[in-house]
Each structure stands twice: as C-alpha cells, then as structure tokens.
C-alpha cells in the first residue's frame, strides 16, 4: 500500500506526514497529528464542525484529501490563540456564554475568524448566512451571533 508524502504548514509550523490516498485532511489532523480540535460531526460537509482554513480559504477538512494539502498552509482551532492570549472571538464566546456542549465551537470560531478577515463589520444577517454551514444544536445560534458581532466591534476598535 503506497502512501503519499505530504508537506504542509499547520498553524505556522512545518508539518510532514504520510497518508493513504482516500484519507481526508480531517483524518490526518485527528489521527496522525493529534490535532483533535477539529471535530467530525458528519464527514459529508453538512455540519461545519471540522472547519479549517486552507491557503486562507474556509473549508471542511472532511471534504479535502490529505494528499490535496501538499504545499498548502492550514490553520485550525489550535492555532487561533497566540500563546496564552485568546483571540478576541474566543474571549467573546466565553463572555457571551456562546457555547454549551462546545463540540461545534471550534468550527464556529475558525469560520467567524475567516468572516471577520473579509468583512470587519458584518451585519447580523451577513453573519448568520456566512455561518449557516456550521450547525449547532444546543444554543439556537442567538448568543453565537451576538458574540461574533461583539468581537467584530472590539477588533475594529483595537485594529
């Protein structure tokens, strides 16, 4: 069984691995690189719990093959805080109690960060449509949207 040698940069660190052709990037992150922050909720791109960015583009890690990641730059939830300083979105989710069970939280945080990088001042509707691919069953989305809008304001003020 010949495996594929892949070279990437994950959360700023060089990362090399071998993977089978049918192994997804999510399988690689979780089972080979111990980055279990990205979660598998469906393995069909319908829940967003495995959201990562690849070369700056928000994607589902379960719908990307490990082999496709060769030569790309990946960021996951584990790369969102810098040292002990939480990203404003991470702090806002805590401040607003925007999580209960928390299984969807990593996906929401990565997706919201990607939104604010493109649109620093989103409306509530723009935020809800951008995050429509991230399913949450505990919160009813109210506090999540409030947290993202609040973090956006803080980031605009401190930018």
């Amino acid at each position, binding site marked *: 069984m010949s495996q594929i040698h892949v070279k990437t940069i994950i959360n700023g660190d060089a990362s090399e691995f071998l993977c089978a052709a049918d192994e997804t990037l999510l399988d690689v992150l979780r089972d080979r690189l111990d980055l279990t922050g990205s979660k598998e909720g469906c393995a069909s791109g319908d829940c967003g719990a495995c959201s990562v960015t690849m070369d700056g*583009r928000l994607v589902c890690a379960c719908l990307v093959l490990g082999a496709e990641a060769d030569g790309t730059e990946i960021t996951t939830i584990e790369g969102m805080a810098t040292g002990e300083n939480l990203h404003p979105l991470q702090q806002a989710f805590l401040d607003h109690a925007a999580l209960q069970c928390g299984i969807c939280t990593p996906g929401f945080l990565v997706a919201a960060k990607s939104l604010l990088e493109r649109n620093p001042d989103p409306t509530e509707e723009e935020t809800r449509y951008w995050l429509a691919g991230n399913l949450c069953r505990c919160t009813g989305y109210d506090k999540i949207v409030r947290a993202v809008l609040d973090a956006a304001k803080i980031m605009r003020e401190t930018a």
Partner: protein
Amino acid sequence: MKARLHPNEGVIAMQFQSPLSVEDAVAFLADDQNARILSGGTDLLVRLRLGHIAPSKIVDIKKIEGMRSITREDGGFRIGAAVSGAEMNENHDLYLAWPGVVEAAGLIGSTQIQGRATIVGNLCNAGPAADSVPALVAASATARIAGPSGVRDVLVQDIPIAPGQTSLKIGELVTSIFLPAQPVNGSDAYLRFIPRTEMDIAVVGCGVSLKLDSAGTVVQARVALGAVAPTVLLVENAAEILIGTQLDDDALSALAEASSSVANPIDDKRGTIAFRKDVSGVLTCRAAKIAYSRAKGTVK
C-alpha cells in the same frame, strides 16, 4: 459497501495522481475506467466516504495550468474547471456580466463548500438538482472537453444525460466553461426553492436570461429548470411567450403555465410532484422579473 479485492494482496489501495498538464490527465484517465476526476471534491469525497464508489485512481486537476483562472475571451469569460464558487463570487466583472450564473454558483452549499465546489464538478456530477446548470444553460454556456481524441466544445445542456451520468467518454474531462459575451441590454438571474434558507439541495431551480431592446421589450429569452426532470430542462416555448412583451401579467402567467407543464418531477424526500410543478411556475416568474429588472438597468 463496495470493497475491490485483489486476489492475493487484499484490497487494492486507491491511487492519487495530480498531473501538471491536460495531456497527462487524459493519459491517467484513458487507461482506467474506474478513475475519478477530483476538482472541488465536495460531491466525490462524500460518495467515497459512504462507500458508494471505490475508485481505482483519483486524478486531481487543480495543479494543471489554467484550471484555476477566469479569463476574458471574445467578450465573454472562460472559467477553469478548478475555479471555486467563492472565487467566482469574488470576480466583480463576471458578476456584472452574468449575475445569475454567479448567484447559482454561490448557492452551492455552505461558505465552507463554496471554498472548494466548482461549477464543472457540479455539472459533471450530473445531479438533477445541480444549482449551476440551469443558469449556465439559460446563458447558452459551453463546456470545453479534452480527451484522447482531442478537444471539443459542447453546449452545457448536452453534458448530463441521466442522473449521475454524463455524455463524456472514457478518458475525457471538462477543462473549462465558456460564458458568451452578455449581449447589450441583457442580463440573467437564478432562483431556487429550498425549505431552509441555506444548506439544502434545490427542490426546484430556475435560470432565466433575457435580452431587451432599447424600449425595454424582450427580444431574446432562455429559461431552464433544475430538479424537475432527470436532467436540466429547457422551457422551449419561453422565448415565444416572452419575446415582444415587457413581462406584463399575461406574459408572466403564460410563462408560469409553460414552466409548470413542462416540469416532469418525481416525489422524493425533498418535494412532491404537485409542489414542484406549482413552484416551477412561481420561481420562473420571479427569476424572469429579476432578470428583466437587471437587463432594464443596463439599457443604454
């Protein structure tokens, strides 16, 4: 679960190739009917994981020169087979010329799916409810096919022939989609019906492209429906109904009637026959009105 057993070595491991040229891609595909083309992967990987397909080889076309570019050509646009919906939505000129096609591409899945999914993948997956296909057909788009016997251009509506089946032969792949120049005083629109506001497969989809004269009267019209037949459906008499009108109520009710009657849907987990036929008419009129107001906006 299909498991392809090798006589003595257990399951054959799937291969992964990422060719740098169309010729190499064609070569990889030509000798293996179990090979699958990978562009965005948002359909292919779902079916792979569910075990509905067990390809011998995946051919990733994203490293082939030109596959990821949008270029101007004869006043229109040539969109590479690996251009994602998100990239199409970020191309302002493309949106100005063909807002309907760009909208359709932008409706495929969530933001995360938009980052990968391509209109060529959407077309070649040959799903009856594919969002981009009705808009492309209304826009008279063509697909460039490369294969062992060279390159040819085909109307988009001739690609899907049955659910999950295309007219492509072994070793052939679509390398790009060509959108003709948007005629002066012309525009288009795409609408779909889904039960939620996001994340659903279209229950009905409708693409409309119109060209007006300087007085705002329709001179050209194409209407295509999705999810109401095994493949995309052209509403043949739409032109006849709309040409010469300014989308007055009579024209619109005739259009709705034509659209509902040509629709040939099934009952499934997403909608009933009656519902799809009713909503085909409703959506066609709504899309026609948007296309008309956009086209009117461009009248010089």
